[in-house]
């Protein structure tokens, strides 16, 4: 007996990334265009290396009294997921206290973006590391 195959093949997704990644890649939030001196920040963290193909800089404005991140700007030399991840992280971190911001992990960034392909997960780690470095730098000085 032959069984007829009725399932229609799914049209493959035109892009490996989620819509959310696409959105943040095409319209990144909170990036700093041009000279970093343009943004007067209270804390700065840089991670990665252009030789390795990625580098990320996080800059934070912090309200001393409440220990809250009031503004975030970033710059990056990196891939599409790196751009989208940093953009997403900047949204997530804004308005949080430093302790709360430290708790945002790479998985949370990836989830916020509707998932990242496996080999792109480290891109979200990168953004998080830069944020952590910025907060640590700040705490060393204050």
């Amino acid at each position, binding site marked *: 007996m032959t069984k007829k195959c009725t399932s229609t093949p799914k049209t493959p997704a035109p892009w490996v990334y989620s819509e959310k990644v696409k959105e943040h*890649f095409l319209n990144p939030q909170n990036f700093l265009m041009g000279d970093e001196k343009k943004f007067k920040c209270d804390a700065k963290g840089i991670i990665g290396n252009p030789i390795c193909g990625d*580098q990320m800089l996080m800059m934070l404005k912090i309200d001393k009294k409440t220990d809250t991140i009031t503004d975030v700007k970033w*710059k990056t030399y990196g*891939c599409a997921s790196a751009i989208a991840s940093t953009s997403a992280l900047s949204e997530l971190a804004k308005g949080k206290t430093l302790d709360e911001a430290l708790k945002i992990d790479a998985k949370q960034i990836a989830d916020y973006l509707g998932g990242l392909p496996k080999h792109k997960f480290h891109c979200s780690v990168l953004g998080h590391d830069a944020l952590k470095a910025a907060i640590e730098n700040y705490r060393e000085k204050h």
Partner: protein
Amino acid sequence: MIYLDHSATSPILPSAKKAMENALENFPGNASALHTPGHLAHNLIEEARENIAKLINADPEEIIFTSGGSEANNTVIHTFKNCEIFASAIEHPSILEPAKTYAKKLHQIPVDKDGVINLDFLKKSLKNTAKNTLCSVMLANNELGTIEPITEVKSIISALKSSDNIYLHTDATQALGKIKIDVKKLDIAYLTASAHKIGGPVGIGILYVKKGAPYQPLILGGHQEHGKRAGTYNTVAIAGFGAVAKYATTHKTWETYESEVRPLRDKLANLILKNIKGSALNTPLSLSLPNILNVSFAAAEGESIQLYLDMLGKIIVSTGSACASGDGKPSHVIMATRNDAEVAHSSIRFSLGLNTKKSDIDAVMKELPNIIKNLQGISTIEVKND
């Protein structure tokens, strides 16, 4: 869509598609079988073999069908197992990886900033070579388009006392159809070619083996190809390859590449250099295939450039960037020519086809300058004014 990734794979040529449909519908027999359908399929394969042989001026008996360029390359290297192998530092991984595994010693021939091999190095190090030494230098490089001086390599070998010990192989996967190839004039022992860079199907290639040159089959277990390559004949793909080969020979595609594609490629190069700050060519225009242009954009990362071009302009290109945090390595070709990871990570390869039009170049120039400007603007790296 503006497809500028022909060196990765090219859209199927109508005559190849027709030949494949014909093979699929009308030649269903196993070409090794002695019954009528088998015999008919066999004839179809032999016709394709003749067409391919003609394109490179070989004899049909010197052509062995393989599953593609990578298998052909692996087969040559495997033939020289436990021998000394000389190969350029910018060969395809399907040469370099097996050579690292099988060779008694792999001597990598260094290249200059254009990707041209160092002939002096070769002259010096090829002296006193042992019996059965392989020298493998690609006809043209896949990332840069650089054409290697195979004729000069051959003269160097011929002038040596030990010249009979040295066999010359060239990987012509990128060069086929783009420049005229004559294996007799080049006087080489082996040549690799594949169908899918010139409008044929993927999954089919050839190894040319000059009569009398050493040969060891890589795939055993069948009498196909006179025992030189076991495995049921891929009649459909072979018919497709035969059709593109015939097309290339009758239309002299290399002339069209020269007269029509090269000017477009050069125009794109000049527009980029003129309009985009921090751009630098990795391809030596006058020493390269007519259809490849590799450019680096300071402070802008290749994969991002590639995806912005794709999403904003439906422009399809490739990049030599691969991030180390993701276990990737930047292009070994650009590392060999420029020794600068940043240049490699910022590189984009445009590869044009016979159908590329001036309006495609205009479309690139409509999107690219802004993409680069924005990426440079948000980059952690500063673009120096030059």
